């Protein structure tokens, strides 16, 4: 493959790992157990809150509260336990696209169920 490299060799010198591997590269960040402990505390608090909230007579808002707390807890797990806060844009995008696709599934399916009764009231 000399022909391809020859002219380029001087310009690049050698393989630039950050180019070879990942333009989205970020420095590896070490999260300390102290941080984990704090997050753990938050998660425990969330668990207590969600159990407590279930006993309040909030009507439809019971579900909303429960989901809101669960989402918050999940976000903490994703950001800290799973290091997404310190990860590349690509990882963040990947996580986001997963939840986005799930929302598409739910939203568009429900668009059918919700509107089935339309025109009938």
């Amino acid at each position, binding site marked *: *493959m*000399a*022909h*391809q*490299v020859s*002219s*380029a*060799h001087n310009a*690049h010198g050698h*393989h*630039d790992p950050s*180019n*070879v*591997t*990942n333009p*989205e590269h970020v420095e590896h960040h070490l999260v300390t157990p102290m941080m984990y402990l704090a997050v753990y505390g938050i998660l425990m608090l969330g668990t207590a809150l969600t159990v407590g909230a279930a006993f309040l007579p909030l009507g439809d808002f019971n579900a909303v509260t429960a989901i809101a707390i669960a989402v918050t807890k999940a976000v903490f797990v994703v950001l800290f336990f799973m290091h997404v806060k310190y990860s590349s844009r*690509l990882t963040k995008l990947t996580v986001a*696209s*997963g939840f986005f*696709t799930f929302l*598409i*599934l739910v939203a*568009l*399916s429900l*668009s*059918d*169920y*919700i*509107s*089935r009764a*339309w*025109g009938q009231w």
Partner: protein
Amino acid sequence: MSTIVTLPDQTTAKLPKRNYINNEHGLMSWLLTGDHKRIAMLYLVSITFFFLLGGFFAGMVRLELLTPQGDLMSADTYNKMFTMHGIVMIFLFLVPSVPATLGNFVLPIMIGAKDLAFPKINLLSWYLYMAGGIFTIAALVLGGVDTGWTFTTPLSTHYLNTHVVTTATAIFVAGFSSIFTGLNFIVTIHRMRAPGMTWFRLPLFIWSQYAASILMVLGTPVLAISIVLVALERTIGIGVFDPTKGGDPLLFQHLFWFYSHPAVYIMILPGMGVISEVISTFSRKRVFGYTAVAFSSVAIALFGMFVWAHHMFIMGISNYSALVFSLLSMLVAVPSAIKVFNWGFTMQKGSITFETPMLYAMGFLGLFAIGGVTGIFLAALGMDIMLTETYFIVAHFHFVMVGGMLMAFLSGLHFWWPKMTGRMYPESLSKFAAVVTFVGFVLTFFPQFLVGYLGMPRRYHAYPAEYQVLNVLSTAGATVLGIGYMLPILYLGWSLKYGAIAGNNPWQATGLEWQIQSPPLTENFVEIPIVEQEAYDYEWLAHQKEVTTVG
């Protein structure tokens, strides 16, 4: 500017002494390989087998439909025939066809990588695929399955006593094979590109594989879970799809088509990538509107996730929801149209030759366009009422899947055959085969549009006599088509031993894969290339001096 590429005459070329084929010997060296090229070959052999199997079922279907009465086989047998035909062709042939064979082989080379990111997972994919295939064959041997490839509940859950669970397992397992292939491709494309290989220098084949891989990763798990639920419903009666227990059978349709619509784009996008490569190579021109073609792949993948309920227009979904899905289906068709026109204009001012891959590619353009626009018929709500569940649909999807993807696969197979084996296929025979398949194809499936509009329902074992003429035409066409498909199998096999030595770059193409020896070394590149040229840069190619071979 204009370019004439003249490379050293390759007729005197010799097969390189050392290459991925003779690198190691023995069966185990193939079965335990991590080399993406060898795995691609394993896939090629296995999907060919399953294509023949699926083709056999298609043949039985067409034979039965020769006469209006159900006289060749019983209704039950017929139902098993088209079910196995659909399942084998879709899950065991078309979904893995281009990605797992051609993609596996050339994708890492095209981006300048030594292998896929996860060679072991790649091998695992093949084993999962084979396991899926074995389960399918088991279901077949045990007595078959007659759900139709769509597994409609509650028919599949409560009203059939055939081997639904076995087949469900097969599809579940094969699904994971496809997930892992997609995952491997995405990581490889993101992480393994050679220095200088920026996103917009990637060949369009890579873009389309990338888009298809996203769909594999995001869509297939939903199929997996819906199939698990079907199996649970059958075995322990959990009732989520059972109307007598308060479940909603339409929920199954939502989940199933959430995968299976994107799946049709899994089945066409890689083929579109092949077409971009082939048309550009044989026109000796950069693909017209590179960015538009690249982004349209991504757009198809993205919008493809939003349109699944167009398979349910008459099934009792809300009329308002149907409106939304119809509109979105219209939108998803636009990027395909963009591609067709860009391919057409790639030929403009080119210097075109008509080797076999190009013939198949031109066949693809015409047939895919017809298949695609009939999709517009189906996406138009009021029209779908008339056309759905008739042979019009059968014709639509065979035009896109067989006329489109299968033609693209054959195009790509001929295109990369020299690279994969180091030998040429016999040109005139293959041109003849290309023409035969085209003629056979049109004769088989065009009459089905007509008989569909007459109202003949699909999945019918016997039909009113007045539809016979068109059915006879179709069966006749299928015979021609079958011959057309047998030819490549024969002459490609022949060429393995007797074909002319191909040399590194018989087509004088620009992709990185053509700059290395054929067949390639196990590690593809002795030295990772540094990319400084755009994709399809013929200027750059013209100034290439030599192509090095090792060994």
